[in-house]
């Protein structure tokens, strides 16, 4: 089964890192095929940046997303720029509720997550907003398991960032819309 995930936001929000973590959880800990790509260079600076992850049980031929099963937007410009290709009926759409105000009504599955707010108010660092979002994404889609994403954070993050990110992940995993 091929699953496509597109993640988008401002450069600096840790969008690409979310992609790397998902790829690592699925590819390293769950033994699935993965391909993770990202916007690069001037496209990635400032405005809108993007990461893409394809996860599959079979060999991945085409590495980019065409019709994402999951779309995450952490800013309005990124939402507008990268929303193309989603299926309004089936795609699970995650937005930072305080940063993405305009979501077309025809999109059926919208998850509004106060990721930046939770990171700032509950974890004391808004830089962890991406990890809050990652938690919410994992909880609502099971694209990877909570255990493997935790194992990924343990393996990939330097020690000084672990506590903050585990806290942020838990807020995401436990957030009820």
């Amino acid at each position: 089964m091929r699953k496509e995930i597109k993640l988008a936001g401002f450069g600096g929000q840790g969008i690409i890192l979310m992609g790397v973590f998902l790829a690592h959880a699925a590819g390293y800990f769950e033994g699935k095929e993965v391909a993770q790509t990202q916007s690069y260079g001037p496209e990635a600076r400032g405005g809108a940046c993007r990461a893409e992850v394809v996860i599959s049980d079979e060999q991945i031929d085409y590495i980019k997303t065409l019709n994402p099963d999951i779309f995450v937007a952490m800013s309005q410009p990124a939402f507008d720029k990268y929303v193309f290709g989603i299926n309004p009926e089936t795609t699970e759409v995650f937005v930072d509720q305080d940063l993405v105000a305009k979501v077309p009504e025809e999109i059926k599955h919208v998850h509004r997550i106060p990721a930046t707010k939770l990171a700032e108010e509950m974890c004391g660092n808004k830089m962890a907003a991406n990890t809050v979002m990652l938690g919410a994404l994992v909880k609502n889609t099971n694209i990877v398991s909570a255990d493997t994403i935790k194992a990924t954070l343990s393996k990939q993050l330097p020690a000084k960032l672990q506590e903050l990110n585990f806290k942020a992940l838990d807020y995401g995993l436990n957030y009820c819309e």
Partner: protein
Amino acid sequence: MEQVEHNIKIMQGNEAIVEAAIAAGCRFFAGYPITPASEIAEAMAQRMPQVNGVFLQMEDEIASICATIGASFGGMKACTASSGPGISLKQEGVGYAAVVEAPIVIINVMRGGPSTGMPTAPGQQDIYQAKYGSHGDYEIIALMPSSCQEAFDLSYKAFALAEKYRVPVYILSDEIVGHTRERVKIPTGLKPVERKEPPLKENYKPYEAGPDGLLNGMPAFNKGYKILIDGQLHDEEGNRAAHLPEVCAGLTERICKKITDHANQLVDIEDSFTDDADILVVSFGSPSRPALSAVKEARKKGIKAGCVKIRTIWPFPDNVIADLALKPHTIIVPELNIGRMVNEVKRVVAGKCEVVSLPKLGGLLHTPSEILAEIERRSKVCTR
């Protein structure tokens, strides 16, 4: 938590090249950073000191390739990496390496050109540069990965081929392979590529070749071999011989034929669904992945399509492609340039079937549906 399968790493294509080089025994890298190849220099700077190797950031690209050639004769397996503009600058050194028969690996992470071009976007516009970029008659070997796994496997292989054929070997990667993260399985027990020492030190002639045109081993400085290395055409001892037409003709012919005569041994292709195919998609590097998607889709629609991925593009696999062209009525060649390799395919197919170019410029990769649309169009207009 443990990983499900061992020896798997998630890494970018550029990182996979570095790990493969180290596995092959490469202990010298000289380069100058350039997008989208910089991660290679970055990872080399980190990894080389860990394995008692040498990382040198040089003042420019010519210096980088020259240092690489020097290191090779100093007894190390060595490589350099760059992209379009940097590879253009390296061309003087490529010709030199070819004529002094230095085993080196040159990595070109291709971006859109010409000139400064599109630094952050992929391209396959340098495939002829790899073969013809430096002046004079010479031959090289060029390998093209389409995935991070192939980036690893082919880079390891590049070092082995460089040693065997005493020739510069190109890895023609691109921005897509370079920056995609995928699973890479690193084989256990992978041994460094062996560098064979020439058997005799007495009366040693550094450029005395066997009947197959290949030199017997690779000497190093300070090991007791009398070696003379010169970009001027030379005799078997390495003495300048520009005044001796027969010697010069012989050397030029040998450094070309030692590669072209071994073209059949160097063939590396992967074919899928070709047995009964009416339409073949022949591709190399990144486009071979949407090509395979498109062929699978076409099969679902009942179209007999097949796929051939060329991994060694130089020397071109003339005989294999000519044989594969006997059955289908059409061959489609998708590539990230204005339509280059299609000319090689046309040359070897020699009219046996229709050959269609499917170029893509602008720094974008073909989507599977674009290739599928061409397959469907051609399946309706059977040319036979």
